[in-house]
């Protein structure tokens, strides 16, 4: 397969640099993190903050839980033909005290995952559009080989 162009499947949610990060925001008033980014009004009920800085979220965390998708999800999911089941993990970021969902890298199935397992964030194609790879963040077990 030829190397295609690499663009984000969802604009502004993560960086395309190496290594990649999820892009969140942090309230300048109370310090609370938000993902996806918040730039209007702070959602902490004790805070009236309206000013935020963009922050790169921790790119490692521990699996809170995990599963997979055995059935092809409906649109707007763009499915390859034939559909290949994929694993999904909910990952707890320690500094942000936040759980973020995402697909697990291709080639890793649920039998290789465990609650508490350390993982890191990588980019992989969510789907291919013509000659363009639409990239998304995925979780990769730190123990797994590339």
């Amino acid at each position, binding site marked *: 397969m030829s190397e295609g162009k690499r663009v984000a*499947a*969802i*604009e502004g949610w993560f960086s395309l640099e190496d290594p990649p990060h999820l892009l969140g925001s942090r309230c300048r008033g*109370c*310090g*609370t*993190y*938000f*993902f*996806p980014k918040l730039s209007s009004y702070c*959602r*902490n*009920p*004790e805070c009236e903050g309206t000013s935020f800085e963009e922050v790169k979220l921790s790119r490692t965390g521990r699996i*809170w*839980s*995990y*599963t*997979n*998708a*055995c*059935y092809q*999800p*409906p*649109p*707007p*999911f*763009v499915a390859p033909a034939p559909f290949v089941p*994929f694993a*999904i993990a*909910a990952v707890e970021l320690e*500094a*942000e*005290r*936040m*759980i*973020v*969902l*995402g*697909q697990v890298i291709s080639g890793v199935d*649920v039998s290789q995952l*465990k*609650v*508490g397992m350390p993982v890191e964030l990588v980019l992989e194609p*969510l789907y291919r559009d013509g000659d363009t790879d639409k990239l*998304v963040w995925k979780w990769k077990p730190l123990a797994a080989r590339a």
Partner: protein
Amino acid sequence: MSGEVAVLGVGMHPWGKWGRNFVEYGVHAARAALKDAGVPWTDVQFVSGAATMRCGYPGYVAGATFAQALGWQGAQVNTSYAACASGSQALAAARAQILCGACEVALVVGADTTPKGFLAPMAGERPEDPDWVRFHLGITNPTYFALYARRRMDLYGATVEDFTAVKVKNAAHGAENPNARYRKRFTRAEVLESAMVADPLRLLHVCATSDGGAAVVLSSLEYARRHSRQAPRIAAISTVTPRFASTEVEMPDIATDSAATAAGHSFRASLAARAYEEAGLGPEDLSLAEVYDLAASMELDWYEYLGLCQAGAAEALLRSGATAIGGRIPVNASGGLACFGEAVPAQALAQVCELVWQLRGEAGARQVKNARVGITANQGLFGHGSSVIVKA
């Protein structure tokens, strides 16, 4: 207590995949509830509809739609939407009208006609909507159910056998319910042979989507007395939102709140806590519970959120037989969503219907002995708590 209202009557349209207009199910349920209450439709002063988003404009204005279908008679009208909690909000609106003295008798109705397969998001490219983004990433409703299930397995030693036992229990309950869509007594083997949907959950662990309708007639205690009716009473309706920082992974969100600077809170535990507080009752007072078993495994989570047992003890409670009819605290005596499937605007009302039949001792072969107090638990997408306590 002055905050109570009477449930004069309840009614349902059987759940199924009938493919007819949702208004028919709503009117069928409403007429059944009015007949049960002994209240003529023309005496109803307030109509409270639970909306559906899948049936076009008549669904958005469900209260008026049902009122027109029953025959315009000048009642005041309301429509509530709170996803799966819509029925509780419609009930709360009716109770508020009664308690403030604006009316004495109210009709609450919810009904839906559902498409086949996964519940999908609204059309169009909308990356600012978390519901659109998660489907784009391939994260469907069963993904969330399975995340909770797997966490129970790794943390508390739950097994697929436990989840299967919940399904088999609820199937046995629902087999005795004429309003249930699935009345088959599924066996353990049938559940375990069904297709894997989201590991560890198989097709028969996950609830379907259904057509159906449910209705409730509420009145002031004074109105019930005047009509010499000994009726069960609504002791609490909880419609709380989460509290920041909400630390549970909630459909349809991609991420939880950050608990880095604010204390973390459990939304699901809070919605029942609010109902207990309002009723002045606790889990020890319950005769039965109707809970939101989107997946069989989630029934176990609810045992803990309702305070029926400590965190991590739900599997032991299930294995003891306490939550089956005949046990100490039967859960989902109706058969639950496992036997009904989701008919979004009707399901929170259907739970109330079951409590009322049980408290009146009219539940037939699925009757819970000496039922005095029951609780419902349900949750609507985007932060809608729903818990109702009914007492005899």
